[in-house]
């Protein structure tokens, strides 16, 4: 009988670390944006009390979890879904799909259109979260790159955008 060596898929540690870093940063930026941007706050206000969602890569992560606390404030809740009640799970089917998204070669909409995302939960909530992600990406990225990530670059007042961008970066990096 032949013996075949069991093959393990490559773990791609650099790509995985990059996606994990991006998820960590975006998760914290969402928390900051919910304090700073009225539209993001309104989107979360429209979701059920305690609403929590995750965005992660199949099969083993990385993942970010964001949810509303008892006071209705939006909080980044880390990467470990263990023990957390998650209302909406958005899962990117594989690491390569996540790389395309987080290097902004593919917008969230195009990734959805190309069936790279699995959404487990209420569709209206998923629509709200995609709108939030689009707004946060516009704050975090230079216009040239953000235009690749969203369908339509918003026509915001320049001063307000810069002011909010600084506050969101400060919140995401330093937790301010």
């Amino acid at each position, binding site marked *: 009988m032949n013996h075949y060596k069991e093959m393990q898929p490559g773990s791609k540690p650099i790509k995985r670390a990059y996606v994990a870093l991006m998820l960590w940063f975006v998760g914290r930026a969402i928390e900051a944006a919910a304090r700073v941007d009225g539209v993001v706050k309104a989107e979360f206000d429209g979701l059920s009390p305690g609403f929590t969602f995750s965005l992660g890569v199949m099969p083993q992560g990385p993942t970010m979890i964001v949810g509303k606390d008892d006071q209705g404030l939006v909080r980044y809740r880390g990467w470990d879904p263990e023990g957390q009640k998650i209302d909406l799970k958005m899962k990117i089917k594989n690491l390569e799909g996540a790389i395309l998204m987080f290097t902004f070669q593919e917008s969230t909409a195009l990734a*959805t*259109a*190309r069936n790279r995302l*699995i*959404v*487990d939960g209420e569709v209206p909530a998923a629509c709200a979260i*995609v709108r939030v992600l689009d707004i946060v990406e516009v704050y975090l990225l230079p216009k040239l790159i953000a235009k690749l990530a969203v*369908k339509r670059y918003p026509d915001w007042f320049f001063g307000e955008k810069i002011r909010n961008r600084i506050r969101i970066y400060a919140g995401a990096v330093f937790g301010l």
Partner: protein
Amino acid sequence: MDLPGYYEYYCGVKIIAGHDALERIPVILQDLHACRPMIVTDKGVAGAGLVDIVLGAVKDQLTIGAVADDVPPDSDLRVVNRLAALYREQDCDALIAVGGGSVMDTAKGINIVVSEGADDLMKFSGAGALKRPLKPLVAVPTTAGTGSEVTLVAVVKDHERHLKMAFVSYFLLPDVSILDSRMTLSLPAAITAATGMDALTHAIEAYYGLSKNPLSDATALAAIRLISRNLVEVTRNPSDREARLAMANAAALAGMAFSNSMVGMVHTLGHATGSVCGVPHGVCMAILLPYGLEYNRHKREAIMGELLFPMGGSDVFAGTHKEQRTDRVIAYVRQMNQDLHDASGGRHARFFKEVLDREGKPAVPRGRLPDIARTALGDGSIFYNPEDLDYDDFLMVLEAAWEGVALDSGRIRK
């Protein structure tokens, strides 16, 4: 042709089309190792004599285990569970769905329950819950529009808990769909027009949407060609069997296109209008389709221009300057609505203020447009639309569609 960097396409449904296609059902079921099907239908279909036509076509060759003709206009969880029990009691081994979207969805729901040996359909909602093939399902559509005879989705409502549950699986695709001209011959003109425009919307939105791909493009273009040549004609002359068969084929082709390339803002707003005001889906599609083209044209100008070829034919296409083709496509769709309005004796609505409910009152009061716009924000079909829409954009489109005026291109944010 611009190829997408990545796409997925699947259609595993055998199509049998013809003026006497129903007669093939016994052999089809034999091939699927079934001999005692249950027919699922609704009172309207049965009352129109369509089930009798099916029974007449299969008599002497097949034993029908049961005929369940009480499917409601909106698929219902309790009905699904009850009919699944009937299927078991009568020792059936296959399903024949004769009807429109609700009947197809109900039959798919029954199939999940009986195949999985379950007692409650809700255990299988969402994507990926089904792991193995189901019992044989033969779909016999009685309208030419929804395309549900080739789609992998079933939507069943739990009216007690006010929930609408979607079931998504390749195992929900019917094994065989029968497109027989006899099934749509008695369809009233206004329903023929609206369901035909639903099929046209499936094809057009699939063709210019974000998930477009070469395979769904091929079926979309074939559908548009058939609809352009036959829909107005069959609305004027409902007994035209050739045109009826052409429309049945068109609806299935459009179904293959949109079940792989999905749909966009026309459906987003159509679902919301149906949900808030109860307007039939096909009516919403007919009214909103020109606005989907107008709103997205700055992102899809060249692709939309290509639609003039299947719509107007080679001479019109070649004789129209490239930059004017999208204008002509939009004008063509509006003219089609006008022709259908005339052909149906004014019963085919061209804009929302013209839509009446069963009591003859306006079905879409202008004051409800903000509610429709808010509801649209939660519809997943918007992901596949080329351009983004927020509440203000939805409202702008709805107001134009209510009045029946073209979109002001200066108000479309780019």
